Structures are given as C-alpha cells and as structure tokens.
C-alpha cells in the first residue's frame, strides 16, 4: 500500500504521515495557517527540535509545577529577539545566537535553563536550506545547553518587510533555593572575573560584514553558559553579580554593576584575556576591545576570598578554559570604572555612546 509507516493512535485512527516541506524558498502560503504551514512546521521545526511537548502541536506547552519545583523555588523568565546581519558568520549563525542568548540571560540569574519558545518572522523568498541550517544550529545549541524548544510561532511577511529572518526566543528556568544574584550586590573587596577571551564575537561580525576588507581567523565565541554557571555556583553559592557581556562589551557590564551597586570597579589591562588578532584588528581600525560584543562571555563579581576557587572551577569547564581575574571592586570612585593601563597610567572606562565606529585619526 502506502510506503509510509502508518502508526495507529490509541483511539484506533490511522496517523497521518509527517508533513514535508518541498519548496526551495519560503512563500506567503507558508505563513497562512494552512497545509503549507503545517508541512513547514512539522518538517523543519518539529523534527529538529524533537520533543513530546512540541510534537503535540498544541497552542501552548504545559508542564508540571511540581517538576519545576524540583530545581528550585523561583521561576526565571526572559526574552530576546535576534536580527543579526549577516545570518552566518565564523563560529555560528543567528540560530546559535537565538538559543545561546536566551539560555545565557536565564543562566545569569543562577537559574537552570529549561524551556525555550521560538517565534520566527520569515521574509518571503528566504531559502529553505538557509532556514534548515539555522534550525539545525538551534537544535545543536539547545542540546549543548540541555534545554528543549517546546513551543513556537511562524509568520511569513512580504519581500522587503523583514531582513531575511528574525527570531525571538523566550525562556524559562528555575533558580535554585538560596541563590541571589543581582547587579546591586557588588561590594568593595570583591573580585571581577571573566571566563575567557574578550571581543571575539564583535570582531568576527565586523569582519564577516566585509565592509573593511580585513581578514582574520577569529570565530565568534557564541556558546551557552548554563552549565558553566552551575559549576561556578557549586564552587561558590555566594556569587554576587553575573551578566553576559553582549552588546557594548565588558565596559558596559562593568559600568552597569558599578552604577547599580554604587561602587568603583578597577580593572587591569595586563590581566584582560584578549586574542592577538582581536588586538591587531582593533589597532588597524581604531577600535577599543572593551566595547566589542561577546556572545559566550560572562562577567562575575564574587567575594574576594572565593575568587581563586571559582576560577579553578571555571577552568575545568570548556567554556571557562581561559577564565581569569581581571580586577576588583573598590569603594571609590563610586559608579565609575577605572582601567589601569599596562603602561602604568589610569583612565576612566565610560559607557559607550552610540555605536563604536572605526576611525582613521
């Protein structure tokens, strides 16, 4: 008879075979709610994200509060939208970012990241292969992070109404009992720690955009950090502050901490882990690596006495191989970040105004 394997449901009805997306490009019918859309969702999303909650294709994912409560006593909830250009860059793509970015926002509260939603806006004419590649990246990153993508939404807009592909992910996680992390918790005497090389993602994107004709082998550092944070909390449950240094770079996060906690933060240029090529790119283009985006780097502020223990735990984890203490929290000047240059001078590291542009002066 049919070449498909037809399984039978519990009520005895034959199950329809899974839909298949046969078109090479997305068109408006894929967003109209009919069969074309169902085929797209089943073939591209459900088969990739592969979990019972999603496969049920209800309008929502429902899970047990009791199950959640096994992880802790508070829910963490976040959302982020990803509109990166170009879609693909060395070290990742918009899919990797969409999962890692939201997982990391959850992880920065100390939460165990658990479930993600995925809302997509597709531009008419988007290549189906591009979409499959992006979804494959999302699947891989979700597996790496130990999260499931359990619900989603897809819209298709006319050519020109979106730039190829926009993704929104929201995420829930559970914060273990007793963990209390906040930008307001920094205290004089605390140590400032990062988990590795700074400025990789910003450099990779700048080079991938190719306006500046510069070639360089630095891939984006895009990665989920949930398990790294868990390892850090195991070494020191009293971590004071955690934030990932995305847009605006290390400098922005440090300023946010300094202002929220009303403390000074002092960092040492010679202790900052920065790749040679990132330094080279910054010198040629007149950029400051402190402001370049990262997508797999966090800044932690921990009690001074625990710093060495936390760094040791981080270095055992693949995402923390090059973890380092980069500075300390001081009482003055409150609300400001001061850099001690390798040359021996000091200067303020202020918040970024607008976007950092390459200079020739």
């Amino acid at each position: 008879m049919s070449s498909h394997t037809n399984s039978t449901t519990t009520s005895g009805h034959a199950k329809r075979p899974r839909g298949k997306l046969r078109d090479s490009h997305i068109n408006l019918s894929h967003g109209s709610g009919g069969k074309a859309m169902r085929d797209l969702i089943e073939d591209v999303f459900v088969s990739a994200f592969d979990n019972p909650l999603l496969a049920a294709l209800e309008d929502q994912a429902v899970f047990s509060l009791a199950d959640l409560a096994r992880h802790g006593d508070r829910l963490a909830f976040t959302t982020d939208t990803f509109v990166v250009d170009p879609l693909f860059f060395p070290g990742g793509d918009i899919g990797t970012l969409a999962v890692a970015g939201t997982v990391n926002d959850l992880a920065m509260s100390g939460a165990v990241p658990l479930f993600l939603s995925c809302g997509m806006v597709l531009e008419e004419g988007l290549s189906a292969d591009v979409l499959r590649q992006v979804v494959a990246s999302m699947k891989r990153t979700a597996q790496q992070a130990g999260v499931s993508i359990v619900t989603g939404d897809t819209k298709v807009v006319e050519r020109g109404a979106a730039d190829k592909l926009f993704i929104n992910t929201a995420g829930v996680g559970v914060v273990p009992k007793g963990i209390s992390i906040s930008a307001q918790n920094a205290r004089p005497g605390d140590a400032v720690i990062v988990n590795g090389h700074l400025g990789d993602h910003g450099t990779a994107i700048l080079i991938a955009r190719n306006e500046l004709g510069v070639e360089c082998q630095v891939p984006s550092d895009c990665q989920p950090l949930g398990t790294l944070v868990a390892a850090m909390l195991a070494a020191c449950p009293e971590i004071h502050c955690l934030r990932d240094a995305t847009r605006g770079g290390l400098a922005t996060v440090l300023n946010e901490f300094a202002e929220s906690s009303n403390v000074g933060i002092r960092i040492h240029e010679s202790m900052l882990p920065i790749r040679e090529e990132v330094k080279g790119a910054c010198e040629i283009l007149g950029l400051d690596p402190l402001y370049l985006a990262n997508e797999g780097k966090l800044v932690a502020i921990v009690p001074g006495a625990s710093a060495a223990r936390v760094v040791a735990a981080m270095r055992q984890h693949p995402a923390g191989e090059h973890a380092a203490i980069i500075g300390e929290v001081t009482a003055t000047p409150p609300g400001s970040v001061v850099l001690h240059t390798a040359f021996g001078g000091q200067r303020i590291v202020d918040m970024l105004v607008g976007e950092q542009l390459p200079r020739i002066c």
Partner: protein
Amino acid sequence: MKYVDEFRNPEQAQALSRQIRELAARIGRTRTRPLQIMEVCGGHTHSIFRYGITQFLPEEVEFVHGPGCPVCVLPMGRVDDCVALAEQPHVIFTTFGDAMRVPGSKKSLLKAKADGADVRMVYSPLDALKLAKDNPAREVIFFGLGFETTMPSTAMTVLQAKAEGINNFSLFCNHITIIPTLRAILDSPELSLDGFLGPGHVSMVIGTRPYEFIARDFRKPIVISGFEPLDVLHSVWMVLKQIDEGRAEVENQYGRIVPRDGNPEALNAVQEVFEVREFFEWRGLGSIDHSGVRVREAYAQFDAERKFHVPNLKIADPKSCQCGDVLKGLIKPQQCKVFRKECSPETPLGALMVSTEGACAAYYNYARIDISNLETHPEKTATGKTA
C-alpha cells in the same frame, strides 16, 4: 606586536617621568605658570588620554590640545554638502567611520543613512574605487578628509581611477594642510606656548623641513613625535631639554617612520592631483589662508564639487559653542560653559565633542573624574549619579 609593544614599556615610562620632573624643576616653572606644550595632532590627543600620559607629568607641565583633528574642524556647512550629495538617489556616498557622526545643521551622515541615503563606511579610498567598478550604474563619491597624511592615498586613488578610465567615481575634497594652521596659532597674540609636539604621520609625508619656520621665526622648540606612549613622553622630554638648554630646533623623535625629506612618491601624487585653495574654513577657527586643497582642473571629472551641485553654505556654530577657544588652546574643555551640560557625547553641540579624539570628547570619556588620587568628582552625588 612588533614596533608597538616595545614603545609601551612601563619601566621606561617611569624612568622618563622622573627625568621629565627633574628637567621641569630645573626650568623652574610652577603650577600657576606652567610650561605649555601643544600637541597639534588629534592622534596625539587620543594617545594622551588613552594612556593617561598627564599622570606621568609634573603639574608644571601641561598639554594644550591643538586643532589637528580633521573631523573636529569640519564646518557644518561641509557636512550639509555631504548629506546633500548622499541624498541624491543614484549616489553611493563613501566615508571614513569617524566622519559619520558629525552633525550638520539638520543631520549627520549617520542619520542620513538611517533616513535612506546610501552612505557606506570604508577603510580606504581604494575600497570606494572598487565600489565604483562594481556598480557602474551608480555614482560613487568618496569623502576625502584628513591632513597631508591621507592626501597621498586619495590622490593615488584618483590617479588610478584615471588610468583605468573609471567615469563614475569622484572625490568630495576636504583635505587640509597643517603648516598654515600652525602659523595661525603662532601668530595668535593670546597664546603663550613653550613648545610643540609635531604630527608624526603628517611628517612621514612632508618631512621635517616645513616646520623650520617655527624654530627660526618664533624661537619655539618642536619635536616630531610618534604615537605610542613612550614616544609621547620621550618627545616631551626632548622639548623640555631644548628649553632647558636654551635651544629652539626641529627635532625628530619618530626617526623610525619620519624621513627628513618626507616621501617623494607621496608628495608627487599630491602635487599632481591637488592645488592649494586660497582659503578654507575651519570650524571654530574661521577662515585660514591656503589651508585647504582642491582637485586640479586636469582631474575635474573626479571632482564632486564640479560634477554635482552642493549647497555650499556657511553655517555658524551655535552661539554657546566655544570650540574655537578650545581648539586654539585658550581654554580647557572643562572651562567651556556648556561642557557636560548642553554639550555631551550624546548631545554634541560642537565638533570637539563628536569626534572621539576631539579634546572635549576625550576629556569627557577618559578623564572627567580626577582619578590621580582616586578622589570623587565633587559634582557626583552620594548615589553616584552626576548632578
């Protein structure tokens, strides 16, 4: 990085700092009557702030930040001309990154881009020429900005365009020259400078001879300086040594890069393509004779000013703007009445706040809190927010 890291050695910085202090003490100035050294070039201003060089100097030696920042001295009227060119539908307007944020009377190039003009950032004028070759149906205009450092590169690009018969490429020329500006500063009766740090990369093109009038006619020492922090400190020491020994000479600290006679190939390219303008307007300084260049008649087809219509209006700075006084070194950024109030990096009134090595922006971003003793700036409140 070779030829970079060695000139950032912190031990030698300490040694130089001590020797500078000794020299300054011998010369005998005080905090109220300090030795004033003008660093002409915006790149030096940037180095001074990036490395905290003033922390290595005694209080009786002061930097006066000069007008050598081509982005800072770009008049608003010229920015309006850029925007007008960029907003023409068939034009691709190419520019260096730092020029994109300078506000015109209505908008900056960055805002024009957001509003739909095809404005593209390039690293090199050669990239603009390539865009012209790749887009034969469009007109590509390159915004040529900068002192003599950058002029040869623009000139060579025009020569290449001519050799290859490219007819959809032109240059909006805003190149300016350093010597008339230095003369204007030295002629200014309000200034009392004791010496100069000369622009290292301009000199790589023009050599060291053009500065001889400073030593000969005005009896001021000038040291052509590199840009690494040790270069800057070394040059300050050399200026002080001249003062201490009663000399006024042109000295070259940046010998590894600056040849005495400059670069003949670069100078030839500039001579071939450009000629001096009778006068050119500098924001904050007014009109300075012979301080700008324009494209020669022989290369008219590559001159955007001849090819296109530009408004060419003179737009005055806001009345409250004191950029001119800061550019001439008469007041420091923090002495400007609108510094940190109406004028800040988010809402710049004048060009010195827009460009990242304008003295005001550098001061605002890097040094607005006195951190030498880690004392809090008096205007900050207890919650750490600025008043």
